[in-house]
């Protein structure tokens, strides 16, 4: 088991290195840099800019060095927790995104739980009542959630919440808690505001999840051992839960890594519509103003989160399923 985990962690290294190279190339691709857009902005405002100052800043931040040297600096910096410097905020990147990343993780976590709570019962029902009206109806509902663009559902829910509950839903916490240290009150306030983004992001993921629960469970239910159990008089519910359900759980855990990017994607766009203090809005802003270290470190962290998610799901799978553990192979 230990060797398996060790191997899996070793596998992560090339993936992360490749990811960092990809991300760095992406943020280096746009012509110009932050200082150029900064100068343009100042000029547009009618101010004069001393070219020496710009030259100094470029020097200071190492923009005169060759690209591979900057990549190396950035990548090795991240290893020790230094994510670079945000020009726009004039703060280290980790200070800008720390809180926001935390909120993103919270939203993501609850969304996944929500997706499971919805998709599981529906998937089981659909599989045991294949081709019934209930099956069609529920599957259709799930598909509808997939088809309605996230941002629009967010808008409509925001409107309804305003209309019927009178809560302002912009943001993730009440204004009074902003910049306050973590406390119980803050936590509760976050929970109060959390349900809209969670529902909105969750609905788009449930359809796919329902489909997969249903397909996997159906595969299991067709196997002879289920018939045997039934013939021997095992109660229907127990016969469902004891083996077929547990078998279909496997894919489910394997899926954790797969749904993370989707959920984070959904979270980003919903965050922009609802003006949540998660990572979405800041990323767009950073991209638009060439605040490259902020944008790059962001993408990198999101990628890192996913890789960790995959790792956790693989380890959980290995614990649950001895076949995978003994093979020592990578699941999925």
């Amino acid at each position, binding site marked *: 088991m230990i060797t398996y985990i060790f191997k899996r962690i070793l596998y992560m290294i090339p993936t992360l290195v490749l990811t960092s190279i*990809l991300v760095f190339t*992406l943020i280096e691709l746009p012509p110009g840099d932050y200082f150029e857009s900064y100068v343009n902005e100042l000029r547009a405002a009618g101010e004069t800019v001393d070219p020496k100052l710009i030259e100094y800043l470029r020097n200071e931040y190492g923009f005169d060095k060759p690209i591979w040297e900057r990549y190396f600096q950035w990548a090795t910096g991240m290893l020790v927790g230094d994510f670079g410097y945000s020009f726009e905020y004039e703060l280290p990147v980790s200070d800008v995104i720390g809180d926001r990343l935390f909120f993103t993780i919270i939203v993501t976590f609850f969304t996944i739980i929500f997706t499971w709570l919805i998709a599981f019962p529906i998937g089981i029902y659909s599989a045991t009542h294949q081709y019934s009206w209930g099956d069609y109806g529920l599957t259709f509902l799930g598909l509808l959630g997939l088809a309605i663009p996230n941002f629009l559902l967010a808008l409509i829910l925001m409107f309804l919440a305003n209309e019927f509950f009178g809560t302002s839903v912009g943001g993730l916490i009440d204004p009074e808690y902003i910049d306050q240290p973590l406390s119980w009150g803050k936590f509760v306030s976050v929970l109060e505001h959390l349900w809209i983004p969670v529902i909105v992001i969750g609905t788009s993921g449930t359809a796919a999840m329902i489909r997969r629960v249903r397909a996997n469970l159906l595969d299991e239910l067709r196997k002879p051992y289920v018939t045997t159990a039934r013939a021997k008089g095992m109660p229907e519910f127990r016969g469902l839960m004891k083996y077929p359900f547990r078998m279909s759980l496997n894919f489910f855990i394997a899926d954790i890594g797969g749904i993370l990017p989707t959920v984070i*994607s959904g979270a*980003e766009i919903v965050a922009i519509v609802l003006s949540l203090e998660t990572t979405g809005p800041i990323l767009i802003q950073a991209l638009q103003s060439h605040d490259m270290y902020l944008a790059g470190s962001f993408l990198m962290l999101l990628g890192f989160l996913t890789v960790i998610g995959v790792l956790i799901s693989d380890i959980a799978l290995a614990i649950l399923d001895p076949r995978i553990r003994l093979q020592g192979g990578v699941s999925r």
Partner: protein
Amino acid sequence: MSNSHYVNDKPFDPKSVEVLTPEQEAIYLAPQRQLIWWKFKRHKLAVASGIFLAIMYLMTIFAEFIAPYSVDAKNTDYVLAQPHDVHFFHEGEFIGPFVYDYDKSLDLENMVRVYTPNKDKIIKLEFFCSGHPYKFWGLIEADNHLMCADIDQPVFLLGSDTLGHDMLSRIVYGARISLTIGLVGVTISFALGIIIGGLAGYYGGWVDLVAQRLIEVVQSLPTLPLWLTLVAIMPANWSQITVYFAITIILGLVDWTGLARAVRSKLFSLREEDYVLAARLMGASTKRIIGLHLIPGFMSHLIASATITIPTMILGETALSFLGLGLRAPAVSWGILLENARDINVVALTPWLIYPVIPVILIVLAFNFFGDGLRDAADPYG
């Protein structure tokens, strides 16, 4: 000793045991394409979705004819007018489809224009008539419309937007970008998926290892932030057409991993089949085996799974345009139209501005059902 076996002298007829009726023979001898079609036909919802999609794509071809107004026709006197109701009877008398003209007034308290139907002014709806002149595909001059109405006395069946454009016409024109962007994007991701997945399956070894890591990396980055980054690096001075193709490439670049993975694993499993061994023993080259024997074997599967990714791309374009990234006005797509609906007040005061979402939902549903049907039919022997 003589042979005690019974020997029948009659000529051997292999079909004597089981005589096939002409219908059965048709089934057994049907080519794969025919079988797929038969199986697909049984999935009623998928067929209906296919027909719906065909109609929608026909609409993108004849948008100029179907839309009552040309794409930039506007009447600034009728800004944010609510949809006209279509009536058939006026004071108990049947006069065919018509709408009541609006009386305009200003609500100074809320600072909005108010449009009230005037029961005396009737605008009859005409069909297949000459109306707003346009250039079909920018080439042929014409003025035929499915339904026409004068822009000076406008008929807004789906209301008008903040500039006095007819929403119905804009939605019809918007389909051109929204519907084609998914197709082009899928073509790109399809090509990438087959090439990279094929290389990995063909060469194996370190090529496979690199390809797999690459797939893992692209999959581990959340789609939307990746799209945003790619869109943000596009120079701002690109023309609409360049941006359009850039976006399709971006959508395709992010999406190919699933297909590549499917191609690779299919190649690996099919390589062990007996017919491949037979082909190899007969001296066929690996290239020929892959191109002629393996890829056609799972092409139908690939097409089916590609169909299912089209809606993701359509939703992706919508989301990007909604955020004001990617394509921008004056281009017209459903996402760009929805950009007007970014404000919560829109939902409350002018709900018709979010109507472009309805075709988005219908198209995504239709593609899902259609893709499901295709996937079931892709393996007609199962």
